[in-house]
């Protein structure tokens, strides 16, 4: 089956010499929910810019559903929908026109364009706002408007560049639900995000970029399997002033009611609980200190920085 997205040796050097992409090769399968992660300045937005024809590449190739973006741009672009990082619609246009016009650029008849705009705006709870100027929407509504606009021509590859930045948790969860539905219906989704919990929850495959290099490209499950140690925060019932002595478990007292404990992947959490119980400590609740993917992400990026510093 043709890949939804195939990138080969993609390079971008900006005027002034900054090398934003250093020969990235990457494939995204049809139907995938794919995360593109990396710290600020890693090259994610440049890569998305090239895929969406907003940035001129220096060299390499991009193919969308088998259509080369350079030699067959019209066909390649027809498959693509983009929810960019920054608001990029006409703030002075009514909401419904922002969406319907986008459909028009893809050759969808005006009447049908408005019907599709209605569907999307209703689905994203913006129908009541259809006649107001786009600039009067709240931040969360503007994000949803960009999703509605990106989906109006029913793209088979949807790229979302930090779609949930700055939106409250309720809207974020409803966006996740909608994105899962779209993905289940067959749309390939590529997501960049700084919320690693989002990537872990939604995406089946993950690529990590750092300083223009692809440092990881694997499935979310495999990536999480490489995590050797997890750190848990335990809230305990009765205050303690010192931890019970142990050579097996690595723990530290955060405050008199909170313990931080590191558990190896190969060890059972039950052993830790049994030990604490034996020492008369009752655990009320437990949570991860950081998101699991976040721990891995930091390790990979830090390792990358070290190897660059000491090649």
């Amino acid at each position, binding site marked *: 089956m043709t890949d939804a997205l195939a990138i080969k040796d993609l390079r971008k050097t*900006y005027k002034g010499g900054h090398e934003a992409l250093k020969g990235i090769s990457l494939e995204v399968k049809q139907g995938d929910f794919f995360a593109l992660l990396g710290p600020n300045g890693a090259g994610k937005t440049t890569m998305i*810019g090239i895929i*969406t*024809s*907003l*940035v*001129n590449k220096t060299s390499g190739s991009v193919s969308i559903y088998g259509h080369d973006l350079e030699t067959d*741009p*019209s*066909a390649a*672009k*027809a498959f*693509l929908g*983009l929810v*960019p990082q*920054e*608001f*990029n*619609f*006409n*703030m*002075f*246009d009514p909401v419904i*026109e922002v969406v319907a*016009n*986008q459909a*028009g*650029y*893809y*050759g*969808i*008849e*005006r009447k049908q*364009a408005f019907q599709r705009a209605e569907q999307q705006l209703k689905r994203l709870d913006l129908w009541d706002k259809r006649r107001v100027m786009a600039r009067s929407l709240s931040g969360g509504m503007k994000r949803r408007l960009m999703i509605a*606009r990106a989906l109006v*021509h029913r793209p088979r590859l949807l790229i979302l560049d930090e779609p949930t930045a700055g939106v409250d948790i309720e809207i974020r969860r409803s966006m996740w639900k909608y994105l899962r539905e779209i993905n289940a219906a067959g749309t390939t989704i590529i997501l960049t995000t700084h919320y690693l919990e989002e990537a872990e929850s939604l995406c089946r495959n993950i690529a990590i970029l750092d300083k223009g290099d692809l440092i990881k490209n694997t499935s979310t499950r495999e990536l999480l399997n490489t995590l050797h140690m997890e750190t848990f925060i335990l809230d305990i019932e009765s205050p303690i002033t010192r931890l019970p002595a142990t050579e097996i478990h690595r723990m530290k007292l955060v405050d008199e009611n909170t313990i931080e404990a590191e558990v190896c992947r190969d060890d059972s959490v039950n052993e830790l609980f049994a030990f604490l119980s034996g020492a008369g400590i009752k655990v009320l609740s437990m949570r991860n200190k950081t998101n699991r993917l976040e721990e891995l992400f930091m390790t990979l990026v830090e390792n990358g920085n070290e190897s660059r510093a000491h090649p």
Partner: protein
Amino acid sequence: MTAHEKWIALQTIATREILRFTRIWVQTILPPVITTALYFIIFGNLIGPRIGEMEGFGYMEFIIPGLIMMAVITNSYSNVVSSFYGSKFQRHIEEMLISPVPNYIILIGFLTGGVARGLMVGIAVTSVSLLFNPLNIHSLPVMLSMIILTAVLFSLAGLINGVYANSFDDISIIPTFVLTPLTYLGGVFYSINMLPDIWQSASLVNPILYMVNAFRYGFLGISDISLVVSYGISIGFIVVLYVFSLYLLRKGQGIRT
């Protein structure tokens, strides 16, 4: 994209562009009508009778075609330059760049908006001129073709200005320091036959002179310049600016990094 899909995309862009300036008609249509009406009152009604005849016509009658043309030039230019720069500034030009719509459709869509505003203002100014002077039309085809060619030409020029503009100041520099002087010196208020030889020759490098004269021919049947030369210059400029605009869009000048 099929030809039908391209046609729909063009309709979409053109409709959006026309709605853009008609929604704010108080800022886009009304001011040139008021300004031109003042020209009619001051130069035509008050000063005109003291000037006397120009090329065998009353001064008011002589300046009407030039003033209409001036309004068309200014408005078709400013419509496209502000719309294109606005779409860059707010980044909604990206909506079209990521879509399959070809560059020439984007270009024609913006031009349609500029031409529509130019013609709408032209019609409004002509209507106001009827309050001061009855409408004389010597050649409707010349009049219509020349006003459309002029609107297209200055819409293209506005687009190029919009492509290169990096700030709101950049979109007013050319209209203020180039377009307005060229229009005033383009034979709107006088016949170049009145000028000394050296200034007559200098005037011939001003492209607006050719358009104003050909347009005046459409009204009054007189022109300082041959019609063939006027059409040749106008069409020549259009072809050159169209090709250059398309090249800029293809290159992504000012819109792609």
